């Protein structure tokens, strides 16, 4: 079912460790290789700059009190697809990012998979 995601390296930015652990587990279940989890915007920016092999990213909108958008900009510049995760609801995203694939906390495995497929433009086989 999730063959399209198997072996993909997915950057995980989430500061709440329990939530990060769940995302990590879910990504592993889908056959992905989680990169991280990373808990600050600065470390995430460094990871985007250093890791040449990122296939996708899951970004918590509010990371340790800071907005994650600089990381999103960096990923977009590199052409890496990404998905936002947020506890603020759809209204929590600025207009510039409103069309971005987004998952709402709390989330389901299906929601994460669908959002990743949407962002990566991979067909669900």
């Amino acid at each position: 079912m999730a063959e399209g995601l198997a072996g993909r390296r997915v950057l995980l930015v989430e500061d709440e460790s329990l939530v990060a652990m769940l995302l990590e587990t879910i990504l592993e279940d889908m056959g992905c290789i989680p990169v991280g989890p990373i808990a600050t915007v600065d470390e995430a920016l460094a990871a985007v700059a250093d890791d040449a092999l990122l296939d996708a990213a899951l970004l918590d909108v509010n990371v340790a009190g800071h907005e994650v958008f600089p990381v999103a900009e960096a990923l977009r510049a590199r052409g890496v697809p990404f998905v936002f995760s947020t506890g603020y609801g759809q209204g929590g995203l600025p207009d510039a990012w409103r069309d971005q694939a987004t998952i709402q906390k709390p989330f389901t495995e299906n929601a994460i998979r669908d959002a990743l497929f949407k962002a990566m433009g991979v067909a669900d086989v």
Partner: protein
Amino acid sequence: MRVVQTLDQTIDFETAFEASPNPYMLLTPDLRFAGMNSAYLAMVGATREQLLGARLFDLYDAGPGQEAPENLRQLRNSFEKVLATGERDHLALFHYAIPVVGPDGSVVHEDRYWSATHTPLHDAAGTLVLILQHATDITELEHLRRGRLAEPGAGALDLMLGGGLINRARKVQEANRRLELERKRLLEMFMQAPGFVAMLSGPDHVFQMHNTAYGQLLGRRDLLGKPVRDAVPEAANQGFLELLDTVFATGEPFEGRNSPIELHRQPSGPPEVAWLDFIYQPVRDDDGRVVGIFVQGHEVTQTVLAGHRQKLMIDELNHRVKNTLATVQSIAIQTARSHPDPTTFADSFQQRLLALSHTHDLLTRSHWEGADLRAVLEHETSTHGPLRIALNGPPVALDPASALSFGMIFHELATNAARYGALSCPDGRVLVDWSVSNQAEGRLAVIWRETGGPVVTPPTRRGFGSRLIEQNVRHDLAGEAKLGYASDGFVAELSVPLDRGAQHHG
């Protein structure tokens, strides 16, 4: 006295003044007699020497009688109005007793009725120097009118004698007095109104008047007589001048709601944002032309700010609730993975939820300012008894997020010890020692050491508990965790910076 040339004659105004059959009298601003003509002297029955230089109200105090104080007040008011406004005032009819020498030589007060006009006289510099009174004694007219009123058919004669006119004049006078009182009261209400009010006149919107609240809104700067453009330049730059121009040009009122404006609230202070509800109301003359704009409104800054704060709080609350739900979801899903049996799942899941909840309770007690490390440890290990878990270390204040993390970590350590480690044997003990080293940066070292338990074998796979500990320490506490599976007892060494401050938001 001025002498002017007209055509081929020279007129001496002093002679004319003296010769006039109309009674005239001049008063200085402090209400002393400065001059009068013969007609006046004849009317009041006095000599020039008696009057010149004397205070009017010393000689004429309205006499005894119930009405006297009110009569005196009316006359004095008229003079004061002239002095205050520099404009002429009329007393169409007033009642005022003056002293006269009776037939037997004694002085008595005689009731008289008067009609008077008080005209201010200014010098070349515009200063009021004299008040000219033109007073007419209409007592006889009034008496005649009253006498006739008692007779049948008095109406026509009364009208002929001007009684109706006098009566009307008296009513107008009374109405004027009431209007004046009302005007004063309105003005006071206007000045003290909590909302701001201003009157702008002309196409340049010149401040004609404003109340106290308006002055306070604009930092009590000097506004009167100035156009808005000069008096409140910052408003002009924010589109308010264009609004005024439009209202003046179209005659259509404008209503602003929750309008932000940057104003200098203090004369030399920085600009501050104020939110206003206001209306610009065009004022028209008798021909319907717009001649000015009436401005009124009130400041709603506090309401707007409270609304913003409330929205922020609701957004933040929503965010926290969603995050907490995601945390609980994570605990549920991961606990389920290691507990396929629903009974043990429920127990384990509830214990973890309770661990989270206990730390919340601790934090609620301190109004979410933080918690002490020992209190967090005692909370999570109390079910195993103080004899089996020895806590040893100095007071360490934890911020709320760190307290929640340590709560979860100690819960996992204690659960693990009870299930597989030292606390699963009757003689096993746990020693928890902590210290703060590196005072400058504040680094907390915690050692959890188990003794007297079964022989330890390293786990074949990393369970949820050890993952949670490692993730929490590294991720949420920005520290390091070392889990040691020595055969004589499990040891966990945690090293965590204490000065993370605002780095974490929870």
